[in-house]
């Protein structure tokens, strides 16, 4: 679909490391193809910076097909940019116009400190999973897979929650930097399935405690998280987690 090359102005957040102060730098790209992905445009920018003796922009990415959850750019005030249901790496330049100025920042949240430029530290998410986001079953303990029957609807619902890619856009989108959508997706998946039932109470309490310890903010139900989530994780997961939490507190005291 070879269409006309575009001129794009970029205002990019540059910050040498977590302790340094950051600021915006402006760059101009003259030959942006509409078929390029957003990250390929950054490749072109970096190539240009390197050959001109400058410092390339650091950003996280790996799979470049919307599944690893590594890419994380805050574009014109929205995590993963203007389009619904996709990650930064799936955004194409045809979503912008010739002459556009695009502002690119890292995820901003106290619990996701900037490492450099557009890269942040999301290890808090791993610690939340380590606190309870699993079924305690050692290798070799399993029964035959088909001896656990799970109605298709339940399986589908658990799957929908399980598609979270752990990108952190929900946190970046939320004015309180709440991690409720991420945590509730895992809690939902495992509380819906029979395999997760045995640890249901401990899990939700431990994960919520860890979430608080990491300094994520509280949820005020604005729904920004779900609206910006590239996997469109549903808000009902948060409601389910709240119910699970209340129930667990009642059962466990």
């Amino acid at each position, binding site marked *: *679909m*070879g269409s006309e090359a575009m001129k794009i102005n970029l205002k990019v957040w540059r910050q040498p*490391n977590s302790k340094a102060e950051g600021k915006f730098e402006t760059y101009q790209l003259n030959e942006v193809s509409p*078929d390029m*992905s957003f*990250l*390929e*445009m950054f*490749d*072109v920018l970096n*190539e240009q910076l*390197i*050959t001109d003796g400058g*410092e*390339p922009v*650091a950003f996280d*990415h*790996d*799979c*470049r097909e*919307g*599944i*690893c959850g*590594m890419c994380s750019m805050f574009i014109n005030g929205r995590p993963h940019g203007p389009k619904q249901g*996709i990650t930064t790496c799936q955004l*194409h330049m045809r979503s912008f116009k010739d002459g556009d100025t695009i502002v690119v920042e890292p995820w901003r949240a106290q619990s996701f400190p900037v490492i450099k430029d557009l*890269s942040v*530290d*999301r*290890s808090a998410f*791993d610690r939340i*999973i*380590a*606190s*309870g986001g*699993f*079924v305690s*079953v*050692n*290798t070799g*303990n*399993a*029964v*035959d*897979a*088909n001896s*656990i*029957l799970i109605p*298709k609807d339940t*399986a*589908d619902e*658990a*799957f929908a929650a*399980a*598609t979270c*890619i*752990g990108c952190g856009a929900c946190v970046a989108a939320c004015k309180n930097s709440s991690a409720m959508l991420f945590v509730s997706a895992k809690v939902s*998946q495992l509380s819906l399935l029979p*395999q*997760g039932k045995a640890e249901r109470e401990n899990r939700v309490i431990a994960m919520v405690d860890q979430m608080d310890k990491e300094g994520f903010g509280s949820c005020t139900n604005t729904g920004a998280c779900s609206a910006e989530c590239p996997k469109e994780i549903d808000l009902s997961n948060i409601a389910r987690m709240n119910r699970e939490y209340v129930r667990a507190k009642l059962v466990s005291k």
Partner: protein
Amino acid sequence: MSNKLDSKTPAGPLAEKWTQYRSTVPLVNPANKRNLEVIVVGTGLAGASAAATLAELGYKVKAFCFQDSPRRAHSIAAQGGINAAKNYQNDGDSVYRLFYDTIKGGDYRAREGNVYRLAEVSVNIIDQCVAQGVPFAREYGGTLSNRSFGGTQVQRTFYAAGQTGQQLLLGAYSALERQVGLGNVKMYARHEMLDVVTIDGKARGIIARNLVSGKLERHFGHAVLLCTGGYGNVFYLSTNAMGSNVTAAWKAHRKGAYFGNPCFTQIHPTCIPVSGHYQSKLTLMSESLRNDGRIWVPKQIDDKRHPNDIPEEERDYYLERRYPAFGNLVPRDIASRAAKERCDAGYGVGPSKMAVYLDFAYNLKNKYGRAEASKLGIDNPDDATLLRLGREVVKEKYGNLFDMYKQITNEDPYEVPMRIYPAVHYTMGGLWVDYELMTTVPGLYALGEANFSDHGANRLGASALMQGLADGYFVAPYTVGSYLSKEIHTKPINTDHEAFVQAEQAVQARLDQFLQVKGTKSVESYHRELGLIMWDKCGMARSEAGLKNAIQEIRALRDDFYKNVRVPGGQFEFNPELDKAGRVADFLELGELMCLDALDRNESCGGHFREEYQTEDGEALRDDEAYRYVAAWEYKGGSDWSLHKEALEYENIKIAQRSYK
């Protein structure tokens, strides 16, 4: 020398080897396990499952990955599914059949004992994953659902929509994080292993670089497991994630581990074609699409018409023409070569002319549309109705892939045929390992795609996920235990030991070297150039002259790299360019070995096609007399390697020429 290549396959009947091994393997008592330390590099399916399982058993584990979280390993991207010989569909599947299909699909270049074990433990994998809460697709009755894959005759593929790899990896990751929480695994994310440390000939640790601070670290282990994935990115463009690389395996190779069948590469037939010079990676369109899409090119060279304006009789359904028995469902290597042949002959389509059509219109209308119409009792439906009804069914099956295609190309595959072209996808080659998954360096193991594996010269679809989890959950925990049972008297070695010091100095020198060149060309530009050489001369078709030429070109490029590369920034900072420089430098060495291996193998088999060795009608011509061996290369320094051969014996399978006509 060649007894280093003893596969250590246990004696006895094929079906009893693994049971026999497991029940006689020496064990380590729980108290001793606590004092034994294991390093696991990589947290994809192979690494995460191995690290979790070893920690559950009681060993002290350290795990490493270069991404910011273990959950992001490249395994996450696998789409289609995972095979297992469960025979839940009662369609005649069995451990033996899966074993047989894998050996045959691999064009008779894999080891019988390993492959049989893989098929055997495949059933335990599904049980384990379900117990962890992996949400596989299910039927209304609540049982697990299966699909067919890769041209086999049974339905043995388990899946979770188009995200099977993601769900399996998140299962293994949660098991891993559970052990992290319990304090049994120490996780080092954003760390890159840059060398193996050997003491008295045994692997005793690694040198790793903290990618955030840039500092080098020394880590001791009684054993080291490399679960670091494949090296398809040597071709620059591939379906692999951007960070996938050969560095860990290559460092091990330079420290004495033989490299097995480096030239065996899988080129996947259905990927979205290259769209411009800025292209950074290629996107796979799952093989399952070939169940319903018909592949064609125009009969006329350089036909400029819109595909929908080309009448039926002017289309060449070349796979159906050449392979009437299997048609569009021939194995990957065959489908890829046939696409290349048509495009090279000038029949390619799209702006680049390097693409063929994958067209769903016929089945939308005739298969699904008609079936729906008859379900709904619509007599004599018109074309529009058929298309509308068919579209609903196809959407349910492949909706996410169609959306992904549209997102990338801006074309709607429900209306216009997809354009596809083959792309590098998987590497069957890797570190040579024996039955215990140990490399030729004692105490150094390779699991998952990083080893030369069970797939011979061509891997069947949905078998890589199976192998990664088989190795990590069910094989390595026994075989590594067997080695460690002899190490209980080895006290942890202090990392002040001179072997650690020397290894660290060498790594440091190399980092300094990259930073000191201060040239003008980006690392990326070298990678891209290497990719072009590899793709043209060591890709889908290889020839003696081309390979010899490629070796010269790679050497020249490598020299140029050390003279003119520019690696900005410094060592002690977050510096992705420096990380990439090391990876590309290793690819520049690996590329040469791949060409050498391809040059040595004077036959065509599986993914390896030498133009000189083909039948009259252009099919691969295998030479079982001369080449029925695993090529295991020993590094001798510089551009010098020596070849060791592990002969492949087939006691349970009759070797035959593959035919899909």
